[in-house]
């Protein structure tokens, strides 16, 4: 269709593709499977949920490989034009914005719990009677190490692992920037080295984060279900960890493509998108570090 000419005046409209439908099927299977699996897991029952979930994930992987494969092929065949590149970039920025809002929900929950819910349970503001009648003896402090119903836990300090992790992640943002500079300057060697270093830093971060979780569960009694402090701690760091994982996978794919000779100064959308994503993940961590660990 649009392959026929390359008039910059003309828009590029991609051909039909089966991948969107496959992707929708994948998401459908995942949602259906995850729902049923959650139910069965909570009841310790055998069921079919995990089959659907597994199948969905599989189809998802097939879809991603297929779709991105097509995309890379078309892009390398020079089918795309500048306008499409702009669309991709803008699309990616708005996607990142939506991710920011997703984290905002959890940060919102954290702020609300710290500044409103916990003080109110302790009798602050217009909730004097809440504290007196329902939760006598409850002490409103943050980190909330003793919940109103008496579950206790210990807080995670910021010095040590979290600080090291912060440093690692900040450095990884810088190294990724160096890699990008390498790409811009056409210095492939520089690009490769800095990219690999960035990936390594990302993986180290994940390893340390995993270690921190073990420490929390084993030594501190800080668990996902140990009250609002544990809830916000694990949901925020957990979703962040998930995003780091995704970012790392993206970077590994980019590394593969770099080694296969892809990307130039003018053709580097995927690389750039990955880099943005990584910087975004880094910024989220900084907020996390300040609000979850330090303050």
């Amino acid at each position: 269709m649009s392959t026929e000419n390359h008039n910059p005046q003309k828009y590029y409209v991609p051909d039909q593709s089966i991948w969107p439908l496959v992707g929708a099927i994948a998401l459908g299977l995942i949602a259906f499977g995850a729902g049923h699996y959650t139910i069965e897991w909570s009841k310790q029952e055998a069921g079919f949920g995990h089959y659907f979930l597994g199948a969905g994930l599989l189809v998802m992987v097939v879809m991603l490989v297929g779709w991105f494969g097509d995309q890379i092929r078309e892009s390398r065949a020079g089918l795309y034009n500048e306008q499409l590149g702009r669309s991709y970039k803008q699309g990616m920025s708005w996607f990142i914005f939506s991710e920011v809002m997703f984290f905002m929900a959890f940060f919102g929950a954290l702020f609300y719990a710290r500044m409103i819910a916990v003080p109110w349970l302790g009798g602050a503001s217009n909730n004097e009677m809440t504290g007196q009648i329902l939760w006598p003896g409850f002490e409103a402090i943050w980190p909330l190490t003793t919940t109103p119903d008496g579950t206790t836990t210990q807080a995670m300090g910021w010095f040590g692992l979290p600080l090291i992790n912060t440093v690692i992640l900040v450095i990884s943002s810088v190294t990724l920037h160096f890699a990008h500079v390498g790409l811009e300057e056409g210095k492939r060697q520089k690009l490769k080295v800095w990219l690999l270093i960035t990936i390594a830093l990302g993986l180290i971060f994940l390893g340390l984060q995993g270690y921190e979780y073990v420490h929390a569960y084993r030594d501190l009694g800080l668990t996902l279900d140990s009250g609002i402090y544990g809830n916000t701690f694990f949901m925020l760091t957990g979703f962040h960890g998930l995003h780091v994982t995704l970012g790392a996978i993206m970077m590994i794919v980019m590394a593969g493509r770099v080694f296969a000779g892809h990307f130039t100064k003018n053709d580097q959308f995927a690389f750039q998108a990955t880099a943005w994503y990584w910087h975004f993940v880094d910024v989220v961590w900084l907020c996390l570090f300040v609000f979850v660990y330090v303050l």
Partner: protein
Amino acid sequence: MSTIVTDTHSAHDAHDHHDHHPKGIKRWLFTTNHKDIGTMYLWFSLIMFFVGGSMALMIRAELFQPGMQIVDPHFFNQMTTMHGVIMVFGAVMPAFVGLANWMIPMMIGAPDMALPRMNNWSFWILPFAFLIMLSSFFMPGGAPAFGWTFYAPLSTTYSTDSTALFVFSMHIMGMSSIMGAINVIVTIMNMRAPGMSYMKMPLFVWTWFITAFLLIAVMPVLAGVVTMVLTDKYFGTAFFDAAGGGDPVLFQHLFWFFGHPEVYIMILPSFGIVSAIIPAFARKPLFGYASMVYATAAIAGLSFLVWAHHMFTTGMPTFASLFFMYMTMLIAVPTGVKVFNWVSTMWRGAMTFETPMLFSLAFVVLFTIGGFSGIMLAITPVDYQYHDTYFVVAHFHYVLVSGAVFSIMAAAYYWLPKWSGVMYDTFLSKLHFWCSLISVNILFFPMHFVGLAGMPRRIPDYALQFADINAIVSVGGFLFGFSQLIFLAVCIKCALKKGEPAPAKPWEGAEGLEWTVPSPAPYHTFDVPPVIK
């Protein structure tokens, strides 16, 4: 607005070379064509409208007289919940996305949406999401029964297992909306034909542009809050449980931070539609184009600062109630600007009253009535009386049914000739309008009265003093429901191409690029961008 000069060559060219398109089922499954995708969205929405409407009729049947006659209270709650969810996420939102898909590229002179494959993905997620949601009717305990607002802890500790399916289908529905919104924004920012500056864009494009921002900003928050519901129910977190240091009211803050902008997501595109139709049939340019744009932006901005007007009775500190009351009242100002502009557009025009215009006129009046009850609800001390009564139900059906849905009908009647290439049956369409207009008021106006008299919402049975009015309301409900079958008939006739062939521009006063291409619009339009002077 602008005068638009197209070189007719482009439309011609498109017709010549580019009208070959895939045939059969593959055309629909794998499509990257904004018109096909728009069509699928619109049909999907119509089906969901009937599914959700059938549930509403079940509600109305049970409420026809006091006492429990037809359904169990638990099933009634499932009906209320799924009616709300399906109408909001399955009928109104997809209808607007369908309209956006069809019209935005044509209105800004683009060949397609910016990201056509992702566009198809957004659409196909929806049928799966709703199949999953509806499949929960067959689980033990049935579908979700906690209202479309799924307040915790009714939706967490005290809900049935359908909650898990509800959460995950909400997740993928949200992804679909976010992708759809990204697509709209990028298309508008990046695909406008040369000369189509922002302040020359048709208002429908503008309102959707702003709507898309709202979507991207709040759908992720919905994803976050359903995730917390899931973990509270199944994984032992206590976000909404005081015993662990959380707060059930936190749920409401997060939900309404999404929910209030959500209701404007369901009305801003309507404003755009009406702003296109009224000038066309008044044969006079839209009054105050620029102020329309600013007002839309102001409404969107304010919508982030008013969410807690749904929560006046939750026991917020007084200063918080006051803040949210003031902010909510302020929304009347930009909305008023819009209403006044529409009226001024009609003023000293030369009006004719084709079906799209009839629906638009009804929209202006009935939406404004809904807005007035909104202002009454915003007055905190009085909201203590209105809250969770049928007064609220009356308010939001006025803005949603005789607002959003009427505007969608208006849009359909305005653009159907362009979509299908045939003129629809004018008599049937007018019949549809008059039946709808009369019955919608029989249906929703008396709800104000029972609400004021003290009938709570979400109840399957009520005290005797509410009986007479509920009977009237139910009759209105069935009349309105069956009137919609006329609409279905009109749509099917058009889809089967039964009718006079439509000219490129069937409405004398209509303006905009979409009328420069033939009817039905060729499969590919504006492969080479038109030039707007």
